[in-house]
């Protein structure tokens, strides 16, 4: 059985990490790149084989646990290093290993001129190994290993250009903010162990099912776990690290900060659907945070000029959608959007990387424009991804986003739907703003750079095209309307525990179609607005900004959230630390000690007469003393 070899999935990238980390410095770049990419590719292959095998099993048998060894055993705590194969982990494994493979291949070319090439692939392979552990662990503690491991790699990769102060600061910020989230995650885990006496998913969920809906302890557990999710998946209030994380190389942004790691929070909530479904209050919190983040980040995205930052805020916003879906109990729609988002957002980032590659590292959209001609493949793939994220039929994002909008109205509240629809409008607007500013209109490219603008090499454009293909057709696994055609839902549902009171309202097909048309219309309006402002009347944006100066400044400065955090949290801690050291430790505690030291100094000045200056003499004097005393005691 291939399933017995599930441990190979994280092992391959880990071996790649070891080889590149230990020997990479002395290996040629293409060997390092090949090792890195092949390692991840092999993981993908194993995953596909296991996936094929699982498909042959009847749906109710699709839950297999493979124990590798007992990791920590102490008293009541028994934690195994074990993998869980079920539809949810398989979907995640496929997404992670698949997208990773493409991004590794892309990076071979993208990073080719970088001195730290081997370091990059070392980290990247380690990241993939950790991410695969995260999504395939069968218990909370092992999941936490992956959870922290990806955080570490994210830290290292954000600070990859460590000689740049801003990059290394951004890495630190990401790590610390994530740790705050982990605080919640671990507390949730402690409570789980305290309540159920186990950390194994299956055991915990089985025991939890005996609890009533709305049980206090489960509500608290799920709220704590969600704090962890807000850290890792960049939700309000812990989202601030993600935009700064764009300091990392672009493939990293694509892989870690768009397609995989940041979705870990969504995965975790879906994995714990058995707990969340018992905690309506927590679900409401998840939905509200998701909806607020979706709109909040989207508005910031409207006013950014750095193309990667636009995409970063867009990621934060799209993650908000996924949480909104989970919050209204539509976990499968959340995971569905996670998958399509992985395709099109990875593509958008890689596309922006391709633009940077062509423009010698330029990120400011005000210095782009008219790149359509020079970079056709990049342009077309980027456009397809933009259509997907805007939610235009038949691109992948349409299916998943529409499902979320639908569920937020039917299973949630009208207000969720209203916010999500508004965010959809804004998304369509700012994404097309980015397309228009980058690829259309007059070229504003710096003339030093202008003459060597070029399309990227095939090693970069092929992954773009594959992802573009997925962004186009990827949504069809979730066909709406037709009974039984939603293969994604059919496959995933055994692994998800739905919210109990569901299945009350079942709207008609006509209503569903109306919703789709409506959301398309909203997206179309957003696109049209962007078209009007950035193609038809390019002076319009400045005029509007001038008119609404205060609001614009507020948004442009990202609502000053970073500044507020700095003044309220960071500075007081630093100040306090200085005071504690310089005043309390130095003057207080050491003051007393120095007092005593003064006495010593006085005494020693007098004892100095006994000092001979030869330390050996001391040693022997003391040894002698010991011997004499011992001898005396014995002989007494």
């Amino acid at each position, binding site marked *: 059985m291939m399933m017995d070899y599930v441990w190979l999935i994280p092992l391959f990238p880990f071996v790649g990490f070891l080889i590149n980390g230990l020997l990479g410095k002395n290996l040629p770049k293409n060997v390092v790149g090949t090792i890195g990419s092949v390692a991840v590719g092999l993981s993908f292959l194993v995953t596909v084989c296991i996936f094929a095998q699982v498909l042959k099993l009847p749906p109710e048998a699709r839950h297999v646990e493979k124990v590798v*060894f007992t990791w920590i055993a*102490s008293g009541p705590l028994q934690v195994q290093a074990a993998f869980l194969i079920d539809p949810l982990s398989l979907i995640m494994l496929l997404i992670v290993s698949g997208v990773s493979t493409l991004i590794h291949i892309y990076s071979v070319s993208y990073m080719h001129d970088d001195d730290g090439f081997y370091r990059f692939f070392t980290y990247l392979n380690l990241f993939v190994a950790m991410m695969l552990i995260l999504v395939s662990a069968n218990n909370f503690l092992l999941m936490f290993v992956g959870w922290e491991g990806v955080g*570490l790699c994210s830290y290292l990769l954000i600070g990859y250009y460590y000689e740049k102060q801003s990059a290394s600061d951004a890495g630190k910020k990401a790590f610390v903010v994530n*740790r705050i989230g982990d605080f919640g995650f671990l507390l949730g885990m*402690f409570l789980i162990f*305290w309540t159920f006496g186990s950390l194994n998913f299956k055991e915990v969920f089985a025991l939890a099912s005996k609890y009533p809906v709305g049980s206090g302890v489960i509500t608290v557990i799920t709220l704590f776990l969600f704090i962890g999710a807000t850290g890792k998946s960049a939700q309000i209030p812990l989202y601030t690290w993600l935009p700064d994380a764009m300091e990392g190389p672009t493939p990293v942004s694509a892989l870690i900060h768009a397609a995989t790691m940041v979705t870990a929070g969504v995965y975790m909530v879906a994995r714990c659907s058995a707990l969340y479904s018992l905690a309506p209050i927590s679900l409401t919190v998840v939905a509200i945070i998701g909806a607020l983040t979706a709109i909040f980040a989207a508005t910031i995205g409207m006013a950014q000029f750095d193309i990667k930052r636009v995409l970063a805020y867009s990621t934060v916003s799209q993650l908000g959608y996924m949480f909104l879906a989970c919050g209204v109990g539509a976990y499968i729609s959340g995971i569905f959007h996670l998958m399509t988002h992985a395709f099109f957002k990875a593509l958008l980032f890689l596309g922006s990387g391709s633009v940077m590659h062509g423009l010698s590292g330029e990120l400011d959209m005000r210095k782009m424009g008219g790149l359509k001609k020079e970079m056709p493949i990049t342009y077309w793939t980027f456009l397809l991804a933009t259509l997907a994220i805007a939610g235009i039929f038949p691109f992948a994002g349409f299916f998943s986003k529409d499902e979320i909008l639908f569920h937020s109205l039917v299973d949630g509240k009208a207000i969720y739907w209203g916010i999500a629809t508004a965010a959809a409008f804004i998304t369509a607007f700012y994404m097309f703003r980015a397309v228009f500013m980058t690829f259309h209109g007059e070229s504003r490219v710096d003339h030093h750079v202008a003459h060597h603008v070029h399309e990227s090499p095939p090693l970069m454009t092929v992954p773009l095209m594959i992802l573009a293909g997925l962004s186009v057709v990827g949504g069809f696994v979730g066909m709406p309307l037709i009974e039984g055609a939603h293969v994604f839902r059919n496959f995933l549902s055994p692994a998800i525990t739905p919210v109990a009171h569901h299945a009350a309202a079942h709207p008609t097909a006509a209503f569903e179609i109306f919703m789709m048309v409506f959301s398309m219309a909203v997206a179309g309006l957003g696109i049209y607005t962007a078209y009007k402002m950035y193609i038809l009347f390019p002076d319009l944006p400045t005029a509007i900004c001038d008119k609404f100066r205060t609001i614009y400044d507020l948004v442009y400065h990202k609502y000053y959230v970073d500044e507020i955090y700095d003044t309220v949290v960071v500075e007081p801690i630093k100040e306090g630390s200085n005071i504690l050291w310089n005043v309390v430790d130095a003057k207080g505690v050491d003051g007393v000690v120095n007092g005593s030291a003064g006495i010593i100094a006085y005494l020693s000045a007098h004892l100095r007469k006994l000092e001979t200056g030869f330390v050996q003499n001391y040693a022997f004097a003391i040894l002698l003393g010991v011997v004499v005393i011992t001898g005396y005691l014995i002989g007494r």
Partner: protein
Amino acid sequence: MTADSLLLVLVFFPLAGSLLALGAGYQPRLCRWVSLILSLMQMALISLLFFLDLQPHSGPTGTWLLAVDYPWLEGIGARFSLGLDGLSLLLLWLTAFLTVISVLISWTAINLKVGLFHFFLLFLEGCLMGLFMATDLLLFYLFWEIQLIPMFFLLGIWGHARRIYAAVKFVLFTFGGSLFMLIALLVLYVLHGHQTGEYTFSLYQLSQTPLSPTVEGWLYAAFLLAFAVKIPLVPLHTWLPDAHTEAPTAGSVDLAGLLLKTGFYAFFRFAFPLFPGAAQASIPLLLALGLVGMFYAAWIALAQTDIKRLVAYSSIGHMGLMVLALGIWNLMALSGSLLQLFNHGISTSALFVMVGMLDERLGSRNFQDMGGLWQQMPVFSAFFLFFALSSMGLPGLNNFVGEILILLGAFQIRPLIAVLAFVGVLLTVIYILRMVQDSLFGESRRVQPLRDVTPREVLILAVMALPVLYIGLHPGPVLRLFESSLQVMWGQFPMLARSLGG
């Protein structure tokens, strides 16, 4: 000769070896090799014990895996008795391991009085061997005090500029603390003698002395004071940063890796069994001291500009968590705490080793002179990051296992304390990251190039990395060792199991 007499060899072999090293001192190179081989042999001997499949058995001094008991000072009833259990075994191994490391890191750094230096290193090893096995209180006290001597000289002769101040401060603090312990010990001895007519220093017998709560409280307090200085607990900690900053690298390794452990070990081995009632009453105090230590040290560490001082404060913080676990006293928290004892010995020592390497190259330990080291010393930086991550408790590495056991164990009975302790653990991340950041990353502030680690240094670091990984990934065997030790202890001192809710 039975396996039991091995314990004598473990104590006297390094002591005899120390004289050999001293004798070889006229030839520094020979002396280094002699010391290395001797310390390796000692380590091999201890490693052998892991494979002997030892089972606990009862004897006159209690239940131990191995025990010896010889008459010593018959006039006063003190005996030369040693006992080995899982905890001591691991600490012995740690001692032997770190002695090997100490010899290796001093290979080129120490050129002054080489023979004497190695004499002190091995002498210290012998003392610690005895200390970690003594089951007679007077014998324990003897080792406890003698170990100050080599440490004092390691600090005072081979230390940095303010070495004399630091060495005197160190001795004054610890010696002051232990005097109280000596008095308490003698009081206990006399009380026991009065009541039973049998004058003895045996831990096993003394633990059965009936004591009034008041007397017990005072005696316990005296022990607590001695151990609190050594651990060290805030506010008795200020000798430690000074001692570390002035110590040579080998001194810091022995100090952080071993000497701090003696305080905690003695607390666990002697103070609790001798005074279970008082120990139970002191639980709120232990919890408070542990927490205060964690927060205080973490916060202060953040402001340090000297990297070695920062590591020293981190040491205080780590010890705080272990003491907190003593106040929890259930199987998980204690196993975690004992494991942390070992982990801290490896990780913090490794950090000190690396700071020492840095100091040798830069001639400075100030963050202002660092930055961008990764560019010039990639191998060094990778190792440094590794041990820093271990120290901040990254899952998959050693400290995580211990910390999670302590926190989970604490959460079982005192959720609020666990949450606070957890915040303390989180604070570690901030200053460790800052340390990594200010040294490895950012712009390089050095003009002249720095040499990356030499093969000898790589060997040292790789060897130290192995236990970090092993404990992180497969702590099972070590945890079983602790578990059986704890079971034996609770079997032997039922008061501890009962009164403290183990």
